């Protein structure tokens, strides 16, 4: 952050938009201050607060990778007032950005390990940044597997990435949707069930998951059933956030704040917190 006022956004310009699904749109933005853009650093998992002045501010993960700094990418699911207003923006529009906020995936700890990604819906966004980071540093990591699920074929975001990942020899990818659909050549079934059928081996493997709270809950249960210890399960959490910097008191789980101590947590950490997910 280049300002000493953590609540003051920097201005940024939307340089490109991508329509992902009927209700998910991706925005690529650059900070207007070229020096700030050049000096901007972050790690996979960190988030930003995007402002549309007159409407409000909301939290989104920076889902581009620090290995590709042409722009910062945010993918936004339309769910309420701010997100609906953001969806109306076009290339050239200006927004406010407060970033990077929060903690990140423990990339150093993940080195040398097999990585199993399990993403549901818009929960694929935080995984995307880490996955690209790993593919750009491919030799640092073992086997990389992605299980990604959406409600229907039309709900699968990041189509460009999925094509690229499907073609790669150095990772495995399994896609699933909830119910059968015409022309769907992949798995059908809820993520935790497909995961159990995949039978990933927990040895030297870290599972990284994100999705709606209910999906996270059942995915973690499935991983535990498969023998993954709690230390080897990493997830990112959502909360209704406002300040993003540990001031407004909104996002706590016990003594931890999702905005500064998270959003990335291992299941071992979460298990010890008050059960209030």
């Amino acid at each position, binding site marked *: 952050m280049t*300002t*000493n*006022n*953590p*609540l*003051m*956004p920097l*201005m940024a*310009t939307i340089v490109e938009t991508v329509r992902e699904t009927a209700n998910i749109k991706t925005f690529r933005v650059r900070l207007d201050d070229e020096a700030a853009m050049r000096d901007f650093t972050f790690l996979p998992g960190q988030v930003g607060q995007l*402002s549309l*002045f*007159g*409407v*409000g*501010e*909301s939290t989104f993960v920076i889902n581009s990778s620090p290995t590709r700094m042409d722009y910062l990418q945010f993918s936004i699911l339309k*769910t*309420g007032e701010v*997100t609906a207003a953001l969806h109306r923006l076009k290339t*050239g*529009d*200006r*927004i*406010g950005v407060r970033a990077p906020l929060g903690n990140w995936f423990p990339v150093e700890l993940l080195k040398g390990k097999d990585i199993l990604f399990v993403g549901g819906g818009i929960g694929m966004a935080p995984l995307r940044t880490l996955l690209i980071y790993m593919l750009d540093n491919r030799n640092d990591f073992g086997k990389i597997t992605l299980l990604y699920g959406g409600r229907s074929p039309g709900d699968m975001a990041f189509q460009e990435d999925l094509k690229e990942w499907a073609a790669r020899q150095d990772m495995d990818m399994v896609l699933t949707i909830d119910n059968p659909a015409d022309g769907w050549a992949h798995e059908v079934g809820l993520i935790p069930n497909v995961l159990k059928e995949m039978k990933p081996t927990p040895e030297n493997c870290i599972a990284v998951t994100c999705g*709606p*709270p209910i999906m996270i809950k059942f995915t973690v249960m499935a991983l535990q059933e498969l023998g993954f210890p709690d230390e080897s399960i990493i997830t990112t959490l*959502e*909360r*209704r956030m*406002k*300040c993003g*910097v*540990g*001031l*407004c*008191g*909104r996002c*706590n*789980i*016990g*003594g931890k704040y999702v905005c*500064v101590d998270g959003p990335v947590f291992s299941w071992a950490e979460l298990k010890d917190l*008050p*059960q*209030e*997910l």
Partner: protein
Amino acid sequence: MDTIFIQRTDIGRWLDRLAEERTVFAPTRRDGAVVYRPYRTGFVLELDAMPTTSPKEIVFPQNETLLTYSRAGNASGGAPKVEARETLPEQKAVIFGARPCGVNGLGVFDQVFDNDKTRDAYYTARRKDTRIITFACDRPRSTCFCTNVGGGPGDAAGSDVMLYPLGDGFVAEAVTTGGKAMLSLATGAPAGDREVAAKALVETAREAMPEPLELARIRENFDKCFNDMEFWEEQSGKCLSCGACAYLCPSCHCFNITDEGTESEGKRLRSWDNCMSYTFTAEASGHNPRAAKAMRLRNRVGHKFVYFPETHEGEVACRGCGRCIVSCPSSVDIRQIAKAIQEYCDDDK
């Protein structure tokens, strides 16, 4: 002189002089409540009753502007020009007539809003030039329990001047150099023996305070009762989720951020918020991690007695001022809840 005796009748003159340089916020009565308002000549001071509100509103106003914005159309048809301007406050203030519990509450603010990791620019702008003149308490209310949570009716921590009531005036003691400068503007006489007499009154008040809570046991038992929803439903049964407790609390600091204005111009505001309301944690997806009232009250009490101490070397965030007890429309009593946690025993559950 560091300690003098000021007659009640001379207080107004002192405040007039202080007000020449700083905005003096002093307690006065409005519609039955005792609140802090900017002092002007002719102002009716309320020197005896415990203020209903707390001094936090002076450094952390109920509502403040964080920034202003404007969006101007572009005649050539390009993207509109958008600007956001920071609006940092400037304030030189004196809080006159704070109580030790209220000043203690600011101690919580200082730790949350001004630490190595985060500095709230708005809060610190007001706080850095705010001086505090505190009234020690010789007659605590029946709802006071500051001594249970590390404070006391004569606790001078955080104050620049302490005023100890005695008869028709106050023994005034400068605690800091800023306090000494303020005291030099007052008309007073040497305190002499009156200092001992006034402090003895406050000490008597201290001794009359209720039995201490067992804070360590509360912390330990909180974990045990956390998932006992029956227990929390019982504790929160009467609660209306109105949030009065949080708004009046000297240490509650939660806020919301909202924009107000049109597309072409307006401002971003921060306003007090409270964790007792359903919308505080409602997520856009419809999921709410603290959907039930019982969970929200559990969070408020947990934050005061368990979560804050966990991250701040055991220090409790409740300052024992009793404001939430006095003003709760349905008589929820945080002392009773703390006590119930302390006595909680899950052996027979």
